[in-house]
């Protein structure tokens, strides 16, 4: 009798846990339209071949401005961009720590723009950088380092506790992608082929203090150490986005830091002509981010440096990798063709203009 009670109790617990997990999966944002950046972090864990020469970590300056497919096609370099929207330096550190559980790249490239933030900015950005990680001690440390005062650690362990109130906002998207999501990115690269030429920018604001925050240096030191301990070369990168303004005072701090730590620092803003960027055609939002043609040009430039500086071998003749990357390239060119088709038909990209699209359909 007692044994029967225990069994029925265990079954009850299992049923409750399963239902809670299903409910959690339903209620969590899917990030399949509009704010697709939220899907980037989780997508890495579906990657079959987690063995890359180069891992990029950082914010939109990496996931919008560099194309791993180009790095493969031009140099035979395998790479993955572990980027997320407004990824702050503590996000980058723990995301790298988590990545190293799966693979040991030869080179890690860190986007230095996030050095400008020394405090957490917004819960929604935290969610997009943290929720996609599988539950682990790293994830908990990441959440703890990132949380705003009003956030609770428990909600990162059990996101249902934070998202349960979405029940009355559930849309068709939530049910459609309940169990399986579409692929949003190409090894972390978020493609956009539309064009919006850059014109003038607001005058750069004067800052109270140009020195990067102590916490940023603390995490940069941790990234350096993590790479050294794992025998990984670290590269500091400023991507060629024209806005927000990259102050000279910031640049010189990174130059000094790189020199002191024996790191390569590439400020792509100093090489715009060499890269061949034309901000009339190579940006989709007037200079904040590059579009596909801009990202491909940047990747050709960066790939050459990475290959020569770190002696990365050309793997294009590797039969297995050749097949893997052929499949990736096919998906990439298919998305490119789809986006051009949408541009021709609607004048804008549907996924990034859902509101306009809904209004037009009414």
């Amino acid at each position, binding site marked *: 009798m007692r044994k029967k009670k225990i069994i029925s109790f265990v079954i009850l617990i299992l049923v409750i846990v399963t239902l809670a997990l299903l409910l959690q999966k339903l209620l969590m944002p899917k990030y399949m339209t509009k704010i697709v950046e939220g899907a980037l972090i989780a997508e890495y864990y579906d990657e079959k071949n987690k063995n890359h020469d180069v891992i990029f970590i950082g914010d939109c300056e990496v996931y919008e401005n560099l194309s791993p497919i180009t790095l493969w096609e031009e140099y035979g370099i395998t790479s993955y961009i572990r980027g997320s929207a407004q990824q702050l330096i503590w996000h980058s550190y723990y995301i790298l720590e988590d990545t190293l559980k799966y693979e040991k790249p030869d080179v890690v490239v860190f986007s230095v723009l996030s050095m400008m933030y020394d405090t957490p*900015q917004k819960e*929604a950005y935290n969610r997009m950088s943290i929720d996609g990680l599988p539950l682990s001690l790293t994830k908990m440390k990441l959440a703890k380092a990132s949380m705003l005062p009003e*956030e609770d650690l428990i909600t990162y362990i059990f996101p249902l506790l934070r998202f349960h109130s979405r029940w009355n906002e559930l849309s068709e998207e939530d049910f459609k992608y309940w169990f399986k999501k579409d692929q949003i990115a190409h090894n972390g690269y978020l493609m956009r082929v539309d064009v919006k030429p850059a014109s003038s920018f*607001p005058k750069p604001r004067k800052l*109270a203090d140009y020195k990067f925050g102590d916490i940023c240096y603390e995490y940069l030191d941790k990234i350096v150490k993590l790479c050294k301990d794992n025998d990984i070369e670290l590269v500091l990168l400023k991507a060629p986005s024209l806005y927000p303004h990259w102050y000279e005072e910031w640049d010189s701090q990174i130059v000094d830091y790189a020199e002191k730590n024996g790191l390569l620092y590439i400020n792509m803003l100093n090489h715009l002509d060499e890269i061949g960027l034309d901000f009339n055609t190579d940006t989709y939002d007037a200079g904040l981010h590059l579009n596909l043609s801009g990202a491909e040009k940047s990747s050709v430039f960066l790939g050459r440096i990475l290959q020569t500086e770190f002696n990365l071998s050309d793997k294009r003749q590797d039969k297995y990798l050749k097949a893997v990357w052929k499949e990736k390239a096919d998906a990439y060119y298919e998305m490119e063709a789809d986006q051009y088709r949408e541009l021709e038909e609607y004048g804008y990209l549907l996924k990034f203009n859902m509101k306009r699209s809904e209004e037009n359909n009414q």
Partner: protein
Amino acid sequence: MKIKIFVLIMVVMILFAGCGSGSENVNPSPSPTTSAAANPDNNETKPATEEKSKYYFEYNGTAIYMNDVAKPVLDVWEEPMHYFESPSCAFQGIDRVYTYNGFELYTYTDGDDETEYIFSVVFMNDSVETNEGITIGSKLEDVISKYGDDFTQEGKKYTYTDSNTTLSFVLENDEVVEVSYNLILN
């Protein structure tokens, strides 16, 4: 049976424990925006209070308060010399910068609501001045004589605060090089 009911009650209690987290934003999925990328001195969250501040900018006879709806103000003025849009990282909201003779006016939109709200006015040269007569090129002593010494200092930046607005002066070599009105963001 009692145990089962107890377990069910516990589960429901745990599920709803997050309700009392004290966060104002019930839905943590991305919606509102003020691009922190555009201004590293700003923290990106909802505005604090809506009480009118004693610090406001006046241009062509129009008073500009932080967090006011921008359209009535923009409609009254001439076309801006420049216009710049900065979509926030991953969000659908957009920060806009309107450049007029002597200053830039920053606005933000809040999620799917396309209404623009004013969140900053930044002087570009000495053709405009604060209501108290301070402009680019003024001395620190001028600032203190007009606004008093109830300021906070962060590096070269002197900030006066009232309700939802800060009025900041950045000084270099004892001269004001930037004047800005900013919406206080929590």
